[in-house]
């Protein structure tokens, strides 16, 4: 894995002749408030449209003026050094930041043309449409069945037990966990292995049929085999869902995503086709990061 080093920007060398960030001093001051993302952050007919998004934790600003679109049924990866605001931005999309007292989000985020921060929008309903999977698997201390049934139950998606059974079975199947747990759905979700727990959390999220699934480093607590399974799962899910995934692994971003966004110190530096980002990045900071010179 890549090391984590916020200050490593100083190691940049002269050879990357990208004019957007002056060489040798790529501190936050060189990319000012009005910095414009390079590459192709915007798409036609976006599912999610983010404009001028700024996020503060108390006095501290974590996200600066981010503009980005997410297209339907794409997998978009978000990469960048630790602390650059990937999680913060991801959590804006389903208003999970509302649960943090000191967090304030400004700007427009639209889901299918509807401003999700509008007063008339219920964050609770929004989160049913935009599911989230966290870095650390967090199954409820309930049975496997109850974990998956939780969402459909609270949203009143089903009336009959048999319908619920179907949803649970389907979700577990799509999360690739069904074969392993079908005989003990009543045992506790916390008793599963880390990788199984993460797939259970994904099943739980799928069970409420969201439009978008946000994933915040879903594999960082998992071993390579479990990681490979989740990546396969993401590829399968991408047929039906739109997925935004934060990851620290370049290889993972390259494997699962069609577009990649690179964040740096709260700013969105570059967005482009994953292939382009990893082979011919436009921005020197992006290049420095993906070639492992810092981050």
């Amino acid at each position, binding site marked *: 894995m890549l090391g984590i080093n916020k200050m490593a920007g100083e190691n940049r060398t002269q050879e990357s002749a990208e004019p957007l960030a002056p060489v040798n001093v790529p501190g936050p001051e060189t990319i000012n408030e009005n910095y414009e993302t390079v590459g192709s952050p915007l798409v036609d007919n976006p599912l999610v449209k983010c404009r001028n998004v700024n996020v503060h934790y108390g006095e501290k600003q974590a996200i600066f003026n981010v503009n980005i679109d997410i297209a339907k049924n794409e997998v978009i990866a978000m990469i960048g050094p630790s602390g650059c605001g990937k999680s913060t931005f991801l959590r804006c999309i389903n208003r999970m930041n509302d649960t943090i007292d000191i967090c304030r989000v400004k700007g427009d985020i639209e889901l299918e043309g509807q401003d999700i921060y509008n007063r008339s929008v219920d964050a*609770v309903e929004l989160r049913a449409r935009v599911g989230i999977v966290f870095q650390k698997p967090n199954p409820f201390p309930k049975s496997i069945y109850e974990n998956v049934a939780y969402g459909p139950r609270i949203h009143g998606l089903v009336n009959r037990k048999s319908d619920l059974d179907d949803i649970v079975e389907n979700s577990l199947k799509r999360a690739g966990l069904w074969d392993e747990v079908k005989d003990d759905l009543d045992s506790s979700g916390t008793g599963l292995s880390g990788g199984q727990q993460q797939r259970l959390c994904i099943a739980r999220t799928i069970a409420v049929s969201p439009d978008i699934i946000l994933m915040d480093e879903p594999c960082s607590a998992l071993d390579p085999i479990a990681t490979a399974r989740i990546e396969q799962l993401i590829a399968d899910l991408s047929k039906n869902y739109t997925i935004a995934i934060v990851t620290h692994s370049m290889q993972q971003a390259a494997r699962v995503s069609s577009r990649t966004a690179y964040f740096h110190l709260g700013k969105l530096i570059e967005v482009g086709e994953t292939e382009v980002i990893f082979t011919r990045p436009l921005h020197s900071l992006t290049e420095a990061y993906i070639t492992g010179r810092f981050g």
Partner: protein
Amino acid sequence: MDLSTLVLVLIAVTVASYYGGVMRSQALAGPLGGIKHLAALPSYYGFMAVIWTVVPALILLLIWTFTESSVIANMVIALMPPEAANLGEGELSLLYSRVGNVASGIMEMDTLGEAYRPAVERLVELDSFTAHFKPLLVITLAVTGALLALKMASAKWNVRYPVERTFNILLFLSSGIAVLSTAGIIFSVLFESIRFFQQIPLFNFLFGTEWSPQIAIRADQVGASGAFGVVPLLVGTLLISAIAMLVAVPTGLMSAIYLAEYASKKTRDIVKPLLEILAGIPTIVYGFFAAITVAPAIRRAGESIGLEVASESALAAGLVMGVMIIPFVSSLSDDVITAVPQSMRDGSYGLGATQSETIRKVIFPAALPGIVGGVLLAISRAIGETMIVVMAAGSVANLSINPLEAVTTVTVQIVTLLVGDQEFDNAKTLAAFALGLILFLITLGLNFMALHIVKKYREQYD
């Protein structure tokens, strides 16, 4: 030299020995080129010297103090005239205290008779001997110990091991004291209870429905044989505890949920200390409050709607006890609720659950075992509570579950039984021990269950 001066001198010697040890280690380290060449840090040398100073001196002091009186008594009694040897134990000790009085000049020699002069003189002699030599010997031993430790100190010998070991033993002894006193209390209660059950059959005690512990104090009294059925007391105790829990559990739990999940940090910072003040009020004040304010209020309210209410009612005591226990329940529940990891909440919110759904369906079930444990602990407090019920519940042993009547509890009866003059082997007095035993067994059982549940719950998130 009296004991307090002796202790002061010992403390001075101890402090000196600590610095002596530290300085000695530095002196040892000097020629070697610094403290890092010592086997242990200088403070350990200091502690080593302290141990050598204090431990032998204290042991001597303790042994001397505890054996002194009996040794002296034996030596003095040996010098008494032969007729003294024939006296019984009680009379002998009476005689010995008279010898003591003469020796200290409170009584004249002639009250005893010349035959006792050698004994008296011996006592005077021995007393002055111990008064002078005990402190001297103790201090000498302390100083010798200190000097010995300083002499033994060397750069090679790792004094850390003996010092740590000594501290280990000290800690072990301290915990031993707690355990031993608990065991002591249990056994004394147990033995007295056994004596009680020799007079009153266990069956009658456990299943008797009448409690009137009036028994003949003099042999010629008639008609008062006493009834020792514990059932009315247990019912009364349970009734009052149940009322208390009805008040405390919902209120405490809901305030805990409010504080842990809804309250802003500012509100929490104000409300939590206020709740804890409630826990700091002495129970006798609650008792007052129950007897003087709540009980009459209930009575008046009851009468205004045509109910007959006793002036001392289970309801008054239970309500006030419930209020007393609220902070207990709320702070324990608050702890377990806040201990539910944030990731559980995130998981639930992330699925589109509202705050109240999250609390009801995720947080509360996850915290439930801990809450149950807390409630059980609260119940055992309610059952053992004395002051409020003594003041507000009355002492009439009604077998009733009507909360408007006066009832009595196990604790109240223990107090009533032990107040006043009785002989100690009287069934009435011994009954208090049997009640104590019952109380102890109940609370022990509850605490045991509570701890077990809480422990099981702890394992869940690790």
